[in-house]
């Protein structure tokens, strides 16, 4: 039997031995460096990409609850015509906050959660390129989200201009509460988080892949996340500028959107959608990556047409920049622009369609097991298809002038972002849960979650297609009897509560599964519960803080699978090794890791202070600024890694952190100080 050649473990990397954790080092003579990996402090100051990923996920689920409750209030108000459960003013705040929360504080951070948790594991790296900047990104996002939501309590009303915030409706005259200030500054803060995260993850993927893992051997999820990070890298500065202009208008009386001074409100629309359309792909591509991992595993086949999947993802990443004005077909941009953007929008459907067909072809001829992650993945394929097709009907610009800003659009983007992104993400939660926490989620509850969510989702958003085509505009706090809107709105509201029920099942599942894992009869799922293909399953579950005992040497796409299966002379595929024999135990204790740090969270804590200060009292802003400077200085003067920790003084060669984590990537706020991190190592 000629078994496919396997690398033996002897080629794998041995890292310099030393104590697992650094001895504390004085930084600035103020703080002892945090240490240890238990207790709440170890989470607040962690730089471990897995913990940061988990915190991203947890925070996003919290905001999902917030945004979900907002959605339920909206749906309750709209359950019947002419209702006045809430005022128009509150309704406008709710739909704005629901949109912004779900987009910026739920879907994007869940994408970041998966990217943070998985990318280093999937490429066989110890951590990301800049571990402390990674912590910075997370805290920056979290504090930005908290700041944004604090407008409910101290803003005199939350943001009420819609997530798209078209000028001049967002100017002080038309939106006199502080809500839009919170919007502009809050999104600026989360934008910094995304930008720094993007730099970090791109550098990680480009630079830190395990030996042998060429770009075209990377798992598809890592590929899609890489494209996502590039989109973030170039989209974030554009929305940053738009938000700066809005902030300057609102706080400093600038004239950017003052029509009486001669401004053109379409400037905002263009800036916003140049960011806003890539944003759509930022939200959906990670989910595409997730199902491209799960469908092969549960079909027991490799992904069909890896190159097409990868290149179509990259193509979406490029073409996504040339379609923004399809959000503006009714805005009066002129027939030539409309025609050009209509055509470009149609053709971006091509790479998306390719993916759908490739996933079907992956399932074709396989042996499909309908586990919870697989169900959610098939859910994505079927539901996203509906969203994609309604998207094509928007590309037909004349049709779009009837559809845009009606519930048809609401239906469309929920089929894309809920039916697409969220189905993929939830499937991803079920799939990687054991890798993150060491225990599985219950399959029975998972399947119940899926079917209730699928039903609730379609009941909620399916009827919105009809409502939109019947002429019901979106963003309306009420509607009249006699327009044919009543029944479908009621159905939609019922569906919304079913979705809520499905997530109650999910949260119950999380809790009860954790309880199961504490029972004496509980059996660990082991490193590879799904018979998976990529190398994150080649280490223990939960993944140890050092990821891999030995950095794996990669010779194949689906490296892990090739270590488990081989081909006989007569071309039969047979198992050649048990997962447990191939997988690493993860019990090494002598791997040197980047040290935790106080500074990222302290630095980020200054941002809301600066934001509140700009809005209410410059004194607070100066205090925040001082804290930011102090934290930046601390971050810069603290060795990115502990030079004396672990190794003592010996060959400088291994005195680098395993990740070269000197955090030199500059961000708009900390470029200068971080630069110095490399100087004091």
């Amino acid at each position, binding site marked *: 039997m000629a078994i496919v050649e396997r*690398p033996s473990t002897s080629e794998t990397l041995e890292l310099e031995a030393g104590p697992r954790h650094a001895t504390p080092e004085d930084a600035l003579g103020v703080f002892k460096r945090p240490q240890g990996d238990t207790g709440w402090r170890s989470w607040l100051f962690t730089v471990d990409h897995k913990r940061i990923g988990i915190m991203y996920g947890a925070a996003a689920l919290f905001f999902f609850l917030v945004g979900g409750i907002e959605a339920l209030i909206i749906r309750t108000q709209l359950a019947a015509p002419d209702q006045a459960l809430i005022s128009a003013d509150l309704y406008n705040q709710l739909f704005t906050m629901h949109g912004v929360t779900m987009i910026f504080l739920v879907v994007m951070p869940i994408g970041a959660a998966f990217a943070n948790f998985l990318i280093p594991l999937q490429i066989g790296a110890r951590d990301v*390129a800049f571990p402390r900047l990674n912590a910075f990104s997370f805290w920056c996002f979290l504090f930005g989200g908290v700041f944004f939501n604090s407008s409910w309590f101290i803003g005199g009303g939350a943001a009420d201009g819609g997530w798209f915030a078209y000028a001049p409706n967002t100017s002080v005259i038309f939106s006199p509460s502080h809500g839009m200030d919170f919007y502009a500054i809050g999104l600026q803060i989360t934008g910094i988080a995304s930008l720094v995260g993007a730099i970090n993850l791109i550098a990680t993927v480009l630079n830190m892949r395990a030996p042998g893992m060429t770009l075209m051997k990377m798992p598809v999820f890592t590929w899609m996340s890489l494209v996502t990070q590039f989109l973030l890298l170039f989209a974030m500065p554009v929305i*940053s500028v738009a938000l700066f202009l809005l902030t300057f208008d609102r706080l400093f009386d600038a004239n950017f959107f003052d029509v009486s001074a001669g401004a053109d409100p379409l400037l905002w629309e263009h800036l916003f959608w140049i960011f806003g359309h890539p944003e759509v792909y930022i939200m959906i591509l990670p989910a595409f990556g997730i199902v491209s991992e799960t469908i092969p595993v549960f079909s027991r086949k490799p992904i069909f047409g890896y190159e097409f999947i990868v290149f179509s993802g990259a193509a979406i990443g490029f073409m996504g920049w040339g379609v923004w004005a399809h959000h503006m077909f009714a805005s009066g941009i002129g027939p030539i622009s409309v025609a050009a953007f209509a055509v470009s929008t149609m053709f971006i459907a091509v790479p998306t369609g390719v993916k759908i067909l490739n996933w079907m072809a992956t399932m074709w001829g396989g042996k499909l097991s309908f586990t919870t992650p697989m169900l959610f993945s098939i859910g994505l394929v079927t539901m996203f298809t509906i969203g994609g097709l309604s998207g094509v009907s928007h590309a037909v610009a004349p049709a779009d002038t009837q559809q845009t800003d009606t519930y048809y659009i609401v239906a469309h983007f929920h089929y894309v972002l809920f039916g697409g992104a969220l189905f993929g993400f939830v499937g991803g939660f079920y799939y990687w849960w054991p890798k993150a926490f060491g225990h599985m989620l219950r399959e029975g509850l998972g399947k119940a979650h899926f079917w209730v969510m699928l039903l609730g989702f379609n009941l909620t958003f399916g009827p919105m297609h009809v409502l939109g085509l019947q002429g019901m505009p979106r963003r309306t706090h009420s509607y009249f009897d006699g327009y044919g809107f009543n029944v479908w709105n009621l159905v939609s509201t019922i569906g919304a509560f079913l979705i809520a029920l499905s997530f109650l099942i999910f949260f119950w599942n999380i809790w009860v599964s954790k309880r199961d894992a504490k029972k004496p009869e509980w059996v660990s799922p082991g490193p590879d519960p799904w018979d998976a293909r990529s190398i994150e399953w080649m280490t223990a579950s939960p993944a140890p803080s050092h990821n891999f005992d030995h950095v794996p040497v990669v010779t194949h796409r689906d490296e892990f699978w090739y270590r488990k299966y081989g081909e006989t002379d007569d071309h039969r595929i047979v198992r050649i090794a048990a997962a447990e024999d191939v997988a690493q135990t993860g019990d090494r204790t002598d791997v040197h890791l980047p040290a935790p740090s106080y500074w990222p969270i302290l630095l980020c804590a200054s941002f809301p202070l600066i934001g509140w200060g700009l809005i209410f009292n410059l004194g607070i802003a100066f205090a925040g600024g001082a804290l930011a400077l102090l934290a930046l200085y601390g971050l810069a003067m603290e060795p990115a890694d502990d030079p004396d920790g672990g190794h003592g003084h010996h060959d400088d060669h291994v005195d680098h952190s395993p990740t070269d984590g000197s955090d030199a990537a500059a961000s708009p706020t900390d470029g200068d100080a971080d630069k110095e991190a490399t100087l004091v190592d």
Partner: protein
Amino acid sequence: MTDTAPAQAADTPTEATGPAPDHLDGVDLESWGLGTNNATGLSNNKLGMWLFLGSDCLLFGALISTYLLMRHRGTGIGPEDVFDIPFTSVSSFVLLMSSMSMVFAVSSIARGDDQKLRLWLLVTSLLGGTFIAGQVYEFTSFYREGMGYTTNLFSSAFYSLTGFHGVHVSVGIIMLMSLFVLSLTGRLKQDRAETVEIVGLYWHFVDIVWVLIFTIVYLIP
């Protein structure tokens, strides 16, 4: 603190290729993942800076586009009323010269010449500082001529665009001064030449952006 450290291992393969483990012959597995074998051939730090600058291009792109859209839309004071081209040309020249001195600084530390490094860092900072002083003077005189930040579309867009650039230059000066202090205290040696190079990348970028801004804002009517 270590005084000797590895420079980038120039002979390290940047990408392991081929189907079998043989391809790893000659690869320094001991240092895999430690920053000396990066697939791009750039260190994480330098790659990070390049990515940031790529992103920053879009920031200035959006600001310049905004300015171009705003410039002639409003009423009242306009570019032709306030600009002093000869003055700004001189300060632009000063900023361009600072790029040259930055190049000297980078080559000084590459040679291990700490004295020269500090000299050129200082010169670069001073040239940058001169540019900022010129900008402050320019803003003040525009303000005296009745062009406040909120006066009209042109003034808002002009101050925002050039202000963002000014902040970038100022951040660069802080970085240069930090390098200067670190060098004085002996913490910036030849082995850290790349750090100076990375700051240099930033500095050149900011200069190039100014060339664009100067051309688009001041020179093109």
